[in-house]
């Protein structure tokens, strides 16, 4: 079920199995039938660890969402609350339990008076499981509310880093960036450090730690301290990771603002990927039945898992969207050729072999059908011109033949214009002037987040805006979208996404040039089909964060000291002593493994860029990616708003 986690160099399934074991142990601690009351926020992350079947095996019979008032009645022995340690949730739990106890005692009296004791329900056992860590503060709150003693078990389920894909770990902590940079609440960094300790317990001490940024420094400090604390309790393991790189999101504020142009990135930009799933409009996925004409279309959004378990998706997810069509049609040819094979199968043996491959081929075919539909959906929004677009070769489910299905693409100039402006900013064109496109968008009251993304991008690419310009944008936004957004604007200023230009020179051009953030020459031919640089993921722009990672591996950060100083926060290197005998003896030609941890979120395009680096033949380094949360510009800005609003496209 989660076998794809073990595909990569580092077997992340170990981590998942460890997490599942803990969960089973806790569930078995509450013997008998049980109902789980979920903090809704946790269901997504838990889905990555365990399906319902696992819970069912351990006598979980009902599941509810935590909310005020009564707990829905269920004939179970145990009621288990799965919650984050939050005071507001404690209040709800306390209310639940108080009501339950009240009604229960009331009913008891009633039954006893009426002499029908046999109807008496046994009292429930309550349990609480804090994720990821129990909290004295919350227990104190439960105590104040007088329900602490109602719990048979109070436990914690340490779920910091969740295996998301074969090379990707996420803490799925939505507000981490907001908490760290806006509210100065470093709780998530503590969890990060703890998570990295768990990781090291399973995969060995990571000998080298590099980092850039305040938060990175803080996490590294905590890790080093925890190492001392845990000293002696860790079972020495041969290190799997050679290097850990901690990167603050605020070192590279620009990248998430830009529109991602990889296949996966675009799906995320357009439809949003949550906890590894995407919800898509169902029309394109309707079963194509010619006779019925497909009248009754499903109305429920189609929910699809997106991970490397799907062979085709693993192949195309990180491609620039321009190259996806070609890849899909190539795949279609391969599949149809494979199906044609059956005509060549003459002997019984050959037929048998063909049949044995059938399930795999059919899976591949339906996977192709799905992705062709998704690509069409995305194309509707992004297509540049009004000409007929790529010919998608579409393998229909029912007919055995291969149908050439040309899809006439709808245009979206909006997307293209937006992209043009983004690229102008990134190349430093007119970043110090009022941008007419932004003006027009505001005037037409385009979605606010789109505006904010652009204004922030201009500010970041100009190392701040002139006070007059900044005030102008702010005024336009407030007048158009409402005064309440003054709070959001204030938040954006606090985290540095918007800022007035200081007397200092705009250093963005220097950074851009030194780090080669814009690769002009690679543009057309390279970005789509045979990329030779990470800049393909944004069709020209090389994400700063990934560039830093790349330069760290070769030739090392010493070569870019100057630029590092321009970026916020300290950069540092720490070494962790390995126990004797655990030094890895590298085979010649064996790659190094680096864990890159993005504090405050990472985009799919950045991940794609890192995967690209891992696959480079002479790269010498393989990357595993970890983050507090997978983000895109929209979800990121949204997390910083005080009154969130509808998504961008």
């Amino acid at each position: 079920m989660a076998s794809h986690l073990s595909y990569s160099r580092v077997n992340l399934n170990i981590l998942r199995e460890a997490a599942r074991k803990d969960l089973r142990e806790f569930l078995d601690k509450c013997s008998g039938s049980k109902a789980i009351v979920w903090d809704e926020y946790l269901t997504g992350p838990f889905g990555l660890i365990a399906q319902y079947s696992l819970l069912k095996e351990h006598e979980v019979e009902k599941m509810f969402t935590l909310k005020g008032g009564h707990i829905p009645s269920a004939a179970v022995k145990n009621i288990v609350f799965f919650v984050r340690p939050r005071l507001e949730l404690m209040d709800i739990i306390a209310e639940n339990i108080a009501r339950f106890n009240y009604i229960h005692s009331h009913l008891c009296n009633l039954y006893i008076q009426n002499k029908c004791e046999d109807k008496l329900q046994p009292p429930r056992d309550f349990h609480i499981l804090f994720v990821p860590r129990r909290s004295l503060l919350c227990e104190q709150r439960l105590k104040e509310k007088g329900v602490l003693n109602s719990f048979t078990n109070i436990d914690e389920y340490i779920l910091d880093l969740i295996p998301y894909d074969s090379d990707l770990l996420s803490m799925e902590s939505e507000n981490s960036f907001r908490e760290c940079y806006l509210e100065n609440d470093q709780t998530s960094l503590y969890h990060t450090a703890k998570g990295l300790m768990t990781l090291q317990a399973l995969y060995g001490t990571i000998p080298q730690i590099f980092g850039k940024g305040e938060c990175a420094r803080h996490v590294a400090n905590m890790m080093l301290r925890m190492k001392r604390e845990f000293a002696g309790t860790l079972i020495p393991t041969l290190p799997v990771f050679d290097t850990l790189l901690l990167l603050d999101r605020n070192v590279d504020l620009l990248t998430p603002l830009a529109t991602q142009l990889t296949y996966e990135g675009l799906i995320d930009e357009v439809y949003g990927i949550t906890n590894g799933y995407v919800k898509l409009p169902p029309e394109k996925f309707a079963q194509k039945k010619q006779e019925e004409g497909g009248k009754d279309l499903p109305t429920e959004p189609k929910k699809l898992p997106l991970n490397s378990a799907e062979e085709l998706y693993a192949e195309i997810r990180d491609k620039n969207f321009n190259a996806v069509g070609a890849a899909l049609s190539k795949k279609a040819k391969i599949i149809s050729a494979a199906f044609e094979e059956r005509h060549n199968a003459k002997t019984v043996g050959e037929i048998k072999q063909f049949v044995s491959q059938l399930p795999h081929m059919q899976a591949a075919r339906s996977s192709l059908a799905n992705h062709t539909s998704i690509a069409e959906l995305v194309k509707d929004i992004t297509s540049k011109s009004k000409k007929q677009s790529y010919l998608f070769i579409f393998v229909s489910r029912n007919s055995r033949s291969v149908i050439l299905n040309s899809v006439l693409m709808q245009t979206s100039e909006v997307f293209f214009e937006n992209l043009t402006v983004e690229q102008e900013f990134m190349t430093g064109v007119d970043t110090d002037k009022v941008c007419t496109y932004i003006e027009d968008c505001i005037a037409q009251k385009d979605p606010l987040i789109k505006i904010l993304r652009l204004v922030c991008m201009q500010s970041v690419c100009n190392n701040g805006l002139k006070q007059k310009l900044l005030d102008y944008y702010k005024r336009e936004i407030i007048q158009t979208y409402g005064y309440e957004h003054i709070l959001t604007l204030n938040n954006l200023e606090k985290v540095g996404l918007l800022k007035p230009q200081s007397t200092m020179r705009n250093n963005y051009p220097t950074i851009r040039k030194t780090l080669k953030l814009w690769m002009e020459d690679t543009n057309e031919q390279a970005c789509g089909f045979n990329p030779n640089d990470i800049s393909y993921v944004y069709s020209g722009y090389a994400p700063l964060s990934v560039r830093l990672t790349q330069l760290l591996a070769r030739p090392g950060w010493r070569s870019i000291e100057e630029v590092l100083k321009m970026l916020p926060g300290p950069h540092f290197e720490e070494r962790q002593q390995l126990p004797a005998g655990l030094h890895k003896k590298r085979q010649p030609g064996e790659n190094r493994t680096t864990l890159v941890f993005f504090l405050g979120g990472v985009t799919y395009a950045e991940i794609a860029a890192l995967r690209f680096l891992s696959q480079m033949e002479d790269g010498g380094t393989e990357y595993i990616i970890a983050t507090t949360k997978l983000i895109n510009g929209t979800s990121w800005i949204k997390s910083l708003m005080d009154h969130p609003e509808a998504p961008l496209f």
Partner: protein
Amino acid sequence: MAFVTANWNPLGEAFYRKVELYDMSWKLKESLREYLIAAAPYGGPIALLKGYQGRSPSTRPQLEIFSASGVPMASFPWKSGLVKQLGWTVSDDLLCVQEDGTVLVYDLLGGFKRHFSMGNEVSQSQVMETKIFHSPYGTGVAILTGALRFTLATNIDDIKLKRLPEVPGLEGAPTCWAVLTQDRQSKVMVANGYHLFILDNTSCTSVTPPGLSPQASSILHMCVSFSYKYLAILTDSGHVWMGTSNLKEKISEVDTNIRNPPKQMAWHEASQQSSVVIMWDRLLLVVGECKEIIQYPLDSDSVLVPEMDGVRIINETHHELLQEVPGACEEIFKIASMAPGALLLEAHKEYEKESQKADEYLREIKEQNLLAEAVKQCVEAAGHEYEPETQKTLLRAASFGKCFLSNFPPELFISMCRDLRVLNAVRDYTVGMPLTHTQFKQMTIQVLIDRLVHRKLYPLAIEVCRYLKTPEYQGVSRVLKHWACYKVQQKEESDEVIAKTVNMRLADASGISYSEIATKAYESGRTELAIKLLEYEPRSGEQVPLLLKMKKSPLALSKAIESGDTDLVYTVVMYLKNELNRGDFFMMLRNQPVALSLYRQFCKHQELNTLMDLFNQDDNHQELGNYYVKASYNEPRLEARVALLQSSVDEFNKAKNEFAAKATEEEMRLLRFQRKLEEAKGEPLLGFSLHDTITALLSVGLHKHAEQLYKDFRVSDKRFWWLKLKALAEKGDWDELEKFAKSKKSPIGYLPFVEVCIKHQNKHEARKYVSRVTPEQKVKAHLAVGDLQSATEAAIERRNESEINTVLSRCSATTDVILVERLNRAKATAAKK
């Protein structure tokens, strides 16, 4: 070597042996019968209380504690009440049960630890008899009171007193009784004459052992085996009944021919031939299930100590172990044994003598394919032998045999060598723990280390840990921690010296919890030392609770912050909040920005008013301004809302945030305007943005008011034009739109007019504006209204390749042949340039 079997006695099929453990090094002044004695199982310590009975209260009895080898460990005069019973807990603590039901607890070096009472009922009717027993739940105490009732505590560390039901017909002290653990419950078995009862929490059940011979008129003594599985009863007819303790099965009944009551009885659960050991004044009988008996005469008063694999016998001068000869030893040493182990031992002997017979013996074993078995036997037997010489001989033989085996796993041999080395070290009389290998395996290395630590044998404990390669945090570090806890209680040394010594010794050990040591120091009243020690604690989090306890809250706060654990910071902050007055609390937070921002978060969700106070204290006008802004949105009444906004204007001004102040003033103006208009025209407007307000006004035709807002709020021309264009198109007010377009030159050009009209499917209106579009946008405009012809003209005229392409892409190859041709031609010329 030849005499290994000298102390063996056959009992049925098996053999019993009596092994000398120690010559007791104690010099007792009186016979053992003068003492109250308690010896702990697993080779534990021995406590003696002299003159405990019938002496005048003026002479104080002496309480002495010895190791199992008789080395004195503690001695002190007994100053408390009359002691009825001594006993040891599983964790090496001495229990002294007094007549009044008070139980005093001492450690094995004579340090007083605590006391507890067995309840009012016991203290009123006084203790008559006591038994101390061990169960999986810990050490328990059972008391028979003067009122002939039993009171029971199953675990002295978690005392829950249970008073057992009355025994019917009991008029005087019962002849004998015992405690047993069955079905996870401690019960008492009482004999009153011939009657036997089992008491549990709720009931008293009369029971009869199956097949108990009827000649007897009274039960004289009973004993329960170490595992609580078996029971033995001695009757006044001299019969020993042996059976299961649940009284379901009789194993055997043997006539001893002795009718005196014995002094002590003990079960020996053995693998072949279990037995009951019964002791009278000068006689010891080993009564086997097979109905055979071994007699041992006794020259002096003795005490029996039942163990899991034998019975120890202690008298004034000697300490012996009586046990069934373990299987492996019997196989090897039994006279004329042909067991593989015996042959291997013989082979090795011949080998040492350099005799070729070695080869013969070896062949004999190998032919039967039993060499591995032989090696195993030798290793196992070595474990059961007490003499290091015998152990060595057996191990050498095993090692010799191993040479002829290709893939015999080495672990067995190696771990036995290690275990024996440790066992020999702790058996040394200076340590005095006569553990058998079986007991050692049962008690585990962890417990052994604990026992060494209790005896303050720290260096030995550390050696053992290192030798057995116990993981540091379970081994060396743990011992060092205990040492340090002991060290900090030594009052004669200064804080400085102790802190230094402790740190020096502990420096290299990992996983040491300094906070535990510090807690110990604090408990013995040395706060300063505790603080010094805490500084060495690597786990900042661990320091916090103790620091709070010691009222060092500022330090606790900074340590909590250092740990990075925000929950811990919150805990301290909440503690401080309750502890300090508000002013001091705020001051303390002010010096700790991390704590302050966390507390702000807390207040944001829980106590909004406090949040305001915090901002006020810091003169954080920007945040105060934001605070009022937020508050204004919770205010349904306009006046209150405006008032709050006014407050935020003031704050923004103080914060020198001109923009925010101005924006807020504008909002106030807008709100007032909206209210006025709402009242006048009945249009719901309140809360709309300026943009939406103008749109709303235009859509209902209040053009003048819209115009007024546009001027008052200095809306940019561009935005106003867009806004009005869209609003009018939305409304379908095309005349007004045309008028508007002509009112003056459009700041946004005329393409938007075309496009907006098209968007509202009004091609006719759209065409009106095409002519006014700038040349640069002409092509687009023509295309928008679907005029391919004109678009082609415009594009060709402008000789712009990309525009030509755009037009081309809209042309159909079939219907627009001429246009396509023209465009392609123009494209070619444009490209040439």
